[in-house]
């Protein structure tokens, strides 16, 4: 698979800080994949996200998106056009008083033809399921709806990668489900590459790849089932694992002969039934 984002030996230090916030990260993100990044506050996950669309540029090392170096200031708009970014607080990223005007903001900045903007705005709103509310005032929407508008505002740029920096942190459970479902659909149906940053373990379960960050380093990287299976590491990082993974792990510790990993109840039941047959 083609890598759309390449990060090589990335170091970053905020001006005035003594310690590095990111200390040596090497990553490649494949086209069309759903990558979840899990980590605690201060683990460097948001700092990493900000490197993907050149809000921050590396102190050392190199970040390239679609072959463009993010440190190249002449290509800034190209980088940002290709990597859409959704932030945590839905109120602080909506710029207009009407939903459709907000979604139009990015293509307007890019100088797209008016008729084409209209097509993109309608398309983006349909993809996130907000088309019916396109004339609404954003401040009257629920948190989950606002965040979907923010996602639409990014899709309207037609980016190859969409980075979501803790988009669910300020939402209620209903809103969180809406956002995760929308992003998953965009990835599976539209082939959008998604980088989903979160500290909710359960939102990572459906990802293709799970990256765990701590202290500015990548401490685990692999399929969610494999990463969660290392319960000791996850506990060391103070992160929780799915109940089913824990159950399988504890049974194995107690001497049960269970092969494989389970991320949901059904798979877990099957594994245990399998083990009982022996």
């Amino acid at each position, binding site marked *: 698979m083609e890598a759309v984002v390449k990060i090589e030996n990335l170091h970053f230090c905020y001006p005035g800080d003594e310690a590095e916030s990111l200390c040596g990260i090497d990553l490649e993100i494949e086209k069309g994949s759903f990558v979840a990044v899990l980590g605690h506050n201060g683990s460097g996950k948001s700092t990493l996200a900000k490197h993907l*669309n050149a*809000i921050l540029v590396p102190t050392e090392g190199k970040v390239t998106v679609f072959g463009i170096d993010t440190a190249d200031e002449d290509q800034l*708009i190209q980088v*940002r*056009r290709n990597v*859409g*970014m959704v*932030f945590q*607080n839905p*109120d*602080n*990223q*909506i*710029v*207009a*008083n*009407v939903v*459709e*005007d907000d979604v*139009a*903001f*990015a*293509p*307007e*900045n*890019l*100088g*797209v*033809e*008016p008729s084409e*903007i*209209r097509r993109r*705005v309608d398309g983006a709103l349909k993809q996130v399921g907000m088309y019916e509310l396109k*004339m609404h*005032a954003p*401040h009257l929407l629920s948190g989950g709806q606002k965040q979907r508008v923010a996602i639409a*505002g*990014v899709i309207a*740029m037609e980016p190859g990668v969409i980075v979501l920096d803790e988009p669910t942190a300020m939402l209620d459970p209903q809103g969180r489900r809406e956002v995760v479902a929308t992003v998953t659909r965009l990835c599976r149906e539209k082939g959008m590459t998604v980088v989903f940053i979160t500290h909710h373990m359960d939102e990572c379960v459906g990802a293709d790849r799970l990256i765990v960050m701590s202290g500015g380093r990548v401490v685990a990287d692999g399929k969610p089932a494999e990463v969660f299976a290392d319960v000791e590491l996850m506990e060391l990082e103070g992160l929780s694992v799915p109940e089913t993974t824990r159950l399988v792990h504890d049974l194995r510790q107690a001497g049960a002969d269970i092969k494989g990993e389970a991320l949901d109840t059904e798979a877990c039941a099957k594994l245990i039934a399998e083990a009982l047959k022996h």
Partner: protein
Amino acid sequence: MLKDITLGQYFPGETVVHKLDPRTKLILVVVYIISLFQATNWISYAFITLLTALCLKLSHIRARNIFKGLKPMLFIILLTAVLNIFYTTGTPIIPGWPITWEGIARAIQMMLRICLLITGTFLLTYTTSPISLTDGLEKLMNPLKKLRLPVHEMTIMLSMALRFIPTLVEETDKIMSAQKARGADFETGSLVDRAKAMLPILVPLFVSAFRRADELAVAMESRCYHGGEGRTRMKKLKFAARDIFALILGAAVLALMMFMKKLGI
């Protein structure tokens, strides 16, 4: 109480008034205000009041919303009325009293004038989305760009300010509740005491507004905002036949009002 603030509010609709080009509406509001100040007599006041009512009817704006908008101005309106009642010379209603018939008439006219003034501007903001309003403003002020005035920056600031009014109002309400929960008292005490009590509201509000502004700036840059250069708009402003008609009508009203003033009616 803060929920009552109607500044910058917009009621979406499909009426003729909504469909008018924002530039037309901006010009018409200026024409309206000038016309309003030509009114000196009952007949001209009646005429412009009727005209305002007609526009309200056309725009399907409910009277309730207008009253809601007038409420915060009540104090100023009443103060103007009281001052006019007492400070106009003429025939007293009861000999020896400082209240004159002329004073009462003037007070009513002044109240009417302020109310109409506010109503007229509300008619503009209620029927025009802030985006098209600022777009119209930018287009109207375009010639000033030649004087190196940052017209685009000014209008985008205005539209952001309008966008964040409801958010900040909501936030103020939240902070007030939080401070009340900790025993803050905003309602009693002298004026100085009450002003001091506002400090624990203003400080967190300012801090959060700056944080919001910072995040908003990053979000805007992430969406490729790089100033007005090369920017296109989804909704292009277009003058239609109705705009020309409305402008001619506006000019006619202004001429008529000036004529009436000259005749003294």
